[in-house]
C-alpha cells in the first residue's frame, strides 16, 4: 500500500514541478525592477509606532517631509519652496509647494502638514515621532498654503526636528486608531508608492512617475528580506538581487573579486559608534532614587586610570582584526559620519604600553602582592574590572579579547561576560551596576542627542551610561542647544568634544563603516562619491537607470 501511494505522490510532484518550470517563461513586457536584498524588514508601516531602521528606509521613499537629508549631512527644503523666520527665532513660516499630490490623487496642502505635526505631537506614546515635536508650541495652516510653526524656545536645528516628520494625508489618518492602524495602503506623496508589503518577506514599491521633483527612472523597487547574511551575499553573486545593503565583513574581499559586482564602503546613513563605557558614577553622585546601585570600581573614577586604559588600547589592531579594516579609529561619541559636527582636530591618545604603565606607576597603582595585577593605591582591591557586552553583538567578544590582551600588559585584569541585552540595560543605567561595557550608539544627523548623553541631567534618566558630570560641559551643552548661528554652534560642539576627550569619558575603539554592493551589469548611476554610503536611499533610487 505504501508503494502505491508514493507513486501517486511522485506523479503529483512531477506535475507541480513542471508547472513551476513553465512559470519562468513570461511573455508580457516586464517593468524595469530594481531588486534590493537586505537583512531586515520594517516592524510596521505606521510611522508613529515604527522603531526599526528598515521602516525608516521605506518612509523616506514613500513619504515627503519638510526637509531632505543629503548624504553629506546637509538639509535641503523638500515640501516647502521657502521658509522665513521671525527675528526671535520662534515663528517659522513654510510656503508649501503648490500642486503636490498624494498617491491617491488628493492634493497635499498645508492642512495635511499641520495635521501631521499635531498628530505626532498629540500621541505621546509614539516613541520616535513625538520627541521631534517637543519644541512645538502651535502648528497652524494658514490660507495661501503656508504652515506656521511657533516654538516654545528658539532652537538651532529645526531642519533636523522636521526631517523625519513625514507628512500624512489628513483624509486617511483623521479618525483612525493612531497605534493600531497598520497603514498597509501607505498613501504618501514621495517618489515611490506602496504596491504590496509582506512582513519579513518583501516590500514592493512602484515609481510615482508624477512626483513633483525628479521622478524615478526605474519602474519598481523591491526590498527582499534575507534572514541569513550568506544567502544575501549569494543572492547578489548569482544575480537574484541587484543591490545588497549590508554584508558580513568577511564577504567584502570575495565580492571585490567578483566580476560585475562593485563594493562600496563609507559612513553609514545613520552613523554608528562602538564605545567602551567606563562607569565613573561615584557613591556621592549615585542616582539612588532612580534605582542606582553604583557598584562601579572606584579606580575608574580616576582620570589617570582611564587615560592609561586609553593608551593601552590598540584601536588599529581592533579595527584590523574585528572589522577586517572596515572602520575608522574613534575619538568621542560624535562619529566622523556627522560631517561638520565631527571634531577632526582632536589628537588621539597614542597606543603606548610603557607610557600607560608609567601613568599608573606615578598615580600610585602598584602591584602590592606580586600577583601581576596592580592594586589600588591604598591596597584595598586589585584593578580587576568586570567587562560586559550585549550577547547579540558580533564584534564585542573579539574586541574584549584584544582589550584583555593589551590591558593585561599594564597590570589590569578583566572578568569578561556576555549578557542578554535587556539584562545589560537593567545593569547599565541608571543602576550603574557594572565596571566596563562594550556597547554602541546609532547617531542622529544632529549631534545634540549624543552630546546630551554625557550631561549631568541624564544620570538619573538612564541615558547617561558613564555617570560623567562636568558643570562646564553641561553649560556648553545648554549653550549649543540654543545657539542659532551655525558656525558658533559648531565651535561649541567641537569644544565639548575636546573636553570629553581630555577627560577620557569613553574609550571609542572605532566607528564601523557601512558596506554595500551592487551589480554593475544591471543598473548604473549609483551615488557613491558622498561621505555617507546609502545606495537604498532616495538619492540613488531616483537616478539609477538600467544598463543598456
Amino acid at each position: 500500500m505504501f508503494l502505491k501511494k508514493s507513486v501517486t505522490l511522485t506523479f503529483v510532484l512531477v506535475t507541480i514541478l513542471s508547472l513551476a518550470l513553465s512559470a519562468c517563461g513570461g511573455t508580457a513586457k516586464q517593468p524595469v525592477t530594481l531588486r534590493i536584498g537586505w537583512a531586515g524588514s520594517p516592524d510596521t508601516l505606521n510611522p508613529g509606532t515604527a522603531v526599526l531602521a528598515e521602516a525608516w528606509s521605506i518612509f523616506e521613499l514613500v513619504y515627503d517631509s519638510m526637509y531632505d537629508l543629503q548624504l553629506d549631512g546637509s538639509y535641503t527644503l523638500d515640501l516647502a519652496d521657502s521658509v522665513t523666520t521671525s527675528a526671535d527665532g520662534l515663528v517659522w513660516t513654510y510656503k508649501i509647494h503648490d500642486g503636490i499630490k498624494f498617491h491617491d490623487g488628493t492634493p497635499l496642502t498645508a492642512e495635511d502638514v499641520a495635521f501631521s505635526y499635531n498628530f505626532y505631537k498629540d500621541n505621546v506614546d509614539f516613541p520616535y515621532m513625538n520627541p521631534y515635536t517637543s519644541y512645538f508650541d502651535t502648528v497652524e495652516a494658514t490660507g495661501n498654503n503656508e504652515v506656521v510653526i511657533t516654538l516654545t524656545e528658539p532652537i538651532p536645528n529645526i531642519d533636523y526636528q522636521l526631517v523625519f516628520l513625514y507628512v500624512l494625508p489628513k483624509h486617511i489618518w483623521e479618525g483612525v486608531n493612531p497605534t493600531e492602524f497598520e497603514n498597509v495602503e501607505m498613501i504618501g506623496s514621495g517618489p515611490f508608492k506602496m504596491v504590496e508589503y509582506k512582513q519579513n518577506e518583501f516590500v514592493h514599491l512602484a515609481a510615482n512617475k508624477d512626483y513633483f521633483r525628479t521622478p524615478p527612472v526605474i519602474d519598481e523597487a523591491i526590498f527582499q528580506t534575507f534572514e541569513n547574511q550568506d544567502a544575501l551575499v549569494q543572492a547578489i553573486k548569482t544575480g537574484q538581487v541587484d543591490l545588497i545593503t549590508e554584508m558580513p565583513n568577511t564577504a567584502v574581499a570575495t565580492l571585490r573579486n567578483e566580476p560585475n559586482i562593485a563594493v562600496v564602503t563609507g559612513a553609514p546613513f545613520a552613523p554608528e559608534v562602538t564605545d567602551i563605557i567606563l562607569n565613573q558614577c561615584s557613591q556621592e553622585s549615585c542616582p539612588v532614587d532612580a534605582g542606582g546601585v553604583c557598584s562601579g570600581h572606584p579606580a575608574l573614577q580616576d582620570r589617570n586610570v582611564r587615560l592609561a586604559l586609553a593608551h593601552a588600547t590598540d584601536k588599529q589592531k581592533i579595527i584590523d582584526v574585528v572589522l577586517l579594516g572596515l572602520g575608522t579609529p574613534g575619538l568621542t561619541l560624535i562619529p566622523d559620519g556627522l560631517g561638520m559636527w565631527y571634531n577632526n582636530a582632536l589628537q588621539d591618545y597614542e597606543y603606548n604600553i610603557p607610557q600607560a604603565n608609567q601613568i599608573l606607576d606615578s598615580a600610585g597603582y602598584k602591584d602590592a602582592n606580586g600577583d601581576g595585577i596592580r592594586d589600588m593605591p591604598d591596597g584595598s582591591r586589585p584593578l580587576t574590572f568586570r567587562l560586559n557586552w550585549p550577547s547579540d553583538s558580533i564584534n564585542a567578544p573579539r574586541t574584549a579579547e584584544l582589550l584583555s590582551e593589551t590591558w593585561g600588559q599594564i597590570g589590569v585584569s578583566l572578568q569578561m561576560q556576555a549578557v542578554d541585552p535587556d539584562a545589560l540595560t537593567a545593569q547599565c543605567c541608571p543602576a550603574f551596576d557594572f565596571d566596563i561595557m562594550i556597547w554602541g550608539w546609532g547617531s542622529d544627523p544632529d549631534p545634540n542627542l549624543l552630546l546630551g548623553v554625557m550631561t549631568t541631567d541624564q544620570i538619573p534618566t538612564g541615558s547617561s551610561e558613564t555617570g560623567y558630570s562636568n558643570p562646564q560641559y553641561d553649560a556648553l551643552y545648554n549653550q549649543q542647544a540654543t545657539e542659532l548661528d551655525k558656525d558658533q554652534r559648531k565651535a561649541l560642539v567641537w569644544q565639548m568634544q575636546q573636553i570629553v576627550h581630555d577627560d577620557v569619558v569613553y574609550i571609542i575603539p572605532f566607528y564601523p563603516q557601512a558596506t554595500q554592493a551592487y551589480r554593475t551589469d544591471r543598473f548604473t548611476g549609483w551615488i557613491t562619491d558622498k561621505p555617507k554610503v546609502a545606495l537604498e536611499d532616495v538619492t540613488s533610487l531616483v537616478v539609477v537607470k538600467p544598463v543598456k
Partner: protein
Amino acid sequence: MKRYQYLLKKVAWSFFTILFVLVLNFLLFRVLPGDPARAGVRDPRLKKEAIEAIRVRFGLDKPVINCFETLNPIKVGSCTVNPLDTQFFIYVRNLLQGEMGISFHSNRPVADILTERLWNTILLIGAGQILAILLGVVFGILAAWKARTAIDYTALLSSLLAWSLPTFWLGIILLFWGSSHGLPIGGKATPGTSTLPLLQQWGDVVRHMFLPTLTYTIVYMGEYMLIMRSSLLDVLAEDYILTAKAKGLNTFQILKDHALKNAMLPLVTVIAINLGFTVAGALQIEAVFSWPGLGGAIYEAVVRRDFPVLQGAFLLIAVSVIIANLIADLTYSYLDPRVQSE
C-alpha cells in the same frame, strides 16, 4: 467499552495538560528579565510619559497577579486587588474569548501573525515530512528486506550520514548549490507575483520550496529509515514470519500482510512527536532560506520580549504536540490492540 474508557482518559489528560501549559506559558515569560515596553528602543529621547503610555496600552501597568506587581524582579504587591484586573486574568479572559492580543512589536493582532506564519510552516514542513516519511519507509523496508547486502549497507551508511549532518550546514551547502542552478534562495514567493494566475503563483512557491524541503527531507529521511529498518528486522526474526515463509508466501506478501503493521509502531511514535513539533517550525532551515515560518517569528518575539506573540505561539505548539500525541496513542490502539488493556 474498554476502548472508550481508554479514549476518554487520553482526551481528559490532554485537556489538563493544555490548561497547565496555559498557566506556565504566562508565568514563564514574565520571569524573563527585561522590560517589553523598552525592548528595542534604548534611546534617550524616549520620554518617561511615552514609556508609561506604552505600558498602559499593552496592559503592563497592571499587577501580574494578586500579590505580585512584577515577577522579574519579584516585586510584592497588594493581594486585595480585583483579580479580574490583573494581567493573568485578563490573559485568561481574552483567551476564552479567542482573543490572543496585539503584538508589542508590530502592533498587529497576534492571531493574524500566527495564522500567516503557521500556513507557511505547515506548507514547508508538511511537504518535507511527507517526503521524508515516504522515502524513509521505502528505503527502510528495502534495507531490511535486503539485509546485509550492498543495498543495505549503502542505505544504512547514507542514512547515518544524512541523520548526523548539521541541518544549517546542509542547508548552506544546498543554498550555494541551488543558487548557482537558478533556484531561489530566499522567501516564499517572488515579490510581485501575487497578480499572476494562481497556477503560476503556485509554481513560483514550489520553486521557492524546493531547497528548504530538500534539506528537511534529507535530514529526517535518515532517521525514519534507520528506525524502519531496525524495527522491521526485529519483526522479521519472529517465529510467525518463519511460519509464513513455511506456508509458502512470497516475500512481498510477508512484508505487506505480516511484518509491516507490527514494524510500524516505533515509527508512528517518532512521526507523531516530530509532527507535533512541526508547528514550531524548523528554525535553522527557516533562517538559512529566509522562510517566513513560525520558528523565525518565535525567535524574533523572544528577542523583543513580545509576550503576546510568545504566549500565542507556545500555546499553539503545546496544543499541536498534545494533539499529535493523542493521535499517536489512538493509532497505537488500532495498530496494537494490547495497548488499551494496559
